[in-house]
């Protein structure tokens, strides 16, 4: 019987408090009528209104959303393929190299990835903008999808695939009708992770973007350098709310299908 000691409970509680405190403060102050952090001016939604009229910010948010959706989808496809290769393909010529390429972006400092991609786009004489950021984000998040899907594939019961083949289903069809539906929650989790990483990214986007494709983090960053601005609290709160709702919804959905499995 697992018994959590007082120390355990305290550490988890303190840890969570530490993690959520800045976020809580952010959310609260987005409703602060006063401009200054030190003065509480009462509850107000004026910053949300101001945000609504801030076209540049809204454009940046829309750009980020689109880039995130596209790169997350591309990364999910490529990442799942890579995971399948790493788990199922056994030893093949170039496996070490392949693994190296897949796992390296996970730990590489973002400035290096960003710089190298920009230099590539320059060398290829590609116009930098929306699509180069999408490509860059796909490359960054692909590895994360692989790690998530790979971990699910490793625990997948292969006798289900054998049973399907035994009953007459060819290998490819087996993968598509049996394996894929059952590992889908992992792929979806990978998609969400990729979406978040892309939506959130500043460094790589800054390196690989061009005129007209400003992402939300880039916009926020340039505003932040000029000082604390309450509208930023507002947009941040909205982002947190959207993501939190999405994650909770996804977890509930996967819990229901997991029970059925």
């Amino acid at each position: 019987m697992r018994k959590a000691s007082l120390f355990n409970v305290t550490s988890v509680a303190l840890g969570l408090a530490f993690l959520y405190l800045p976020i809580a403060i952010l959310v609260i102050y987005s409703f602060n009528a006063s401009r200054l952090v030190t003065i509480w001016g009462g509850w107000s939604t004026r910053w949300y209104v101001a945000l609504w009229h801030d076209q540049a910010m809204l454009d940046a948010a829309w750009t980020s959303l689109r880039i995130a959706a596209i790169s997350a989808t591309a990364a999910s496809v490529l990442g799942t393929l890579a995971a399948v290769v790493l788990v199922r393909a056994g030893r093949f010529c170039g496996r070490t190299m392949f693994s190296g390429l897949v796992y390296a972006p996970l730990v590489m400092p973002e400035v290096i990835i960003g710089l190298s991609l920009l230099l590539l786009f320059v060398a290829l004489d590609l116009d930098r903008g929306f699509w180069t950021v999408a490509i860059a984000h796909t490359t960054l998040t692909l590895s994360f999808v692989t790690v998530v899907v790979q971990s699910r594939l490793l625990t997948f019961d292969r006798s289900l695939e054998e049973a399907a083949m035994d009953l007459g289903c060819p290998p490819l069809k087996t993968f598509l009708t049996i394996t894929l539906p059952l590992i889908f929650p992992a792929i979806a989790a990978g998609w969400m992770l990729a979406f978040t990483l892309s939506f959130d990214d500043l460094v790589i986007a800054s390196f690989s973007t061009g005129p007209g494709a400003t992402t939300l983090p880039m916009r926020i960053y340039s505003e932040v350098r000029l000082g604390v601005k309450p509208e930023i609290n507002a947009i941040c709160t909205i982002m947190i709310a959207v993501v939190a709702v999405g994650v909770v919804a996804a977890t509930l959905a996967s819990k229901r299908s997991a029970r059925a499995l």
Partner: protein
Amino acid sequence: MTIAASSREKARRDWGGRLVILIPALWLTVFFLVPCLIVLKISLSQTMIAQPPYVPVLDLAAGWPGIKDFITRLSFDNYKILGSDWLYLASYLRSLAIATLSTFILLLIGYPIAYGIARAPRRLQPVLVMAVFLPFVTAFLIRIYAWINILQREGLLNDALLALGIVREPVVWLATDTAIVLGIVYSYLPFMVLPLYASLEKMDESLLEAAADLGAPRWKAFWLITVPLSASGIFAGVLLCFIPIAGEFVIPDLLGGSDALMIGQTLWTEFFQNKDWPVASAVAIALLVILLAPILIYQHLQMRAVEDR
């Protein structure tokens, strides 16, 4: 079904398999490997007011003499600059120092949290893991920005300290190393907690019971049994944090001062402000070389994890 037909099918399967490997491999080669090589090449070039702002430019149309000319014009000048200027060396050392300190603090704080979650009732664990993970998901930039709210001179921390009478004047928190480390620890905590939790969760409770049965007190059982068994999680967490922290840019930029820079900031400055692409590339390559050993260790661990199963 004839043997010929089934061997044709097998051949089709083999090619299908090769395609599955090729697609991600090609993507990663073009968008990851080749760019790294390009960075290497540019680190050996000189800066120029031109588009692109460096020479030599490899002109394949010039044929073999063009390539030879290209190679002779490459030089290690940029690396010499890095080696000779104390500014750069200090930047590297500072980054490594901050990365080491942060990683150590992350391990110290993250381990009890991960352990606490692993000991929680089974039904509660996924919720707790999600709770640790959620901040990570809600925009990195935002959370760093949130710390500015707290740490600035007229910020909440000073308010609290003044109110409690711990200090008599507002303390400068921002633009200090303390702020940087705080921001780093805050942002990377999930990266330390999750791998630790993953390996602690797999541990068999009965091992601790056996240790107790054989006479080991709880703290001893912890050091002799729990910690060694969670080694893979510790390694993964440490590497997953240390390597990216060394090259971190946003946190030192927003929370740190402008007097001493971390290497990520140096690279950014060289690139965006000085527009010196070759030197920026050299900085990147040098950083990569320094981090090569940890990166390779991490790869090795990942591959072993897949093969062990």
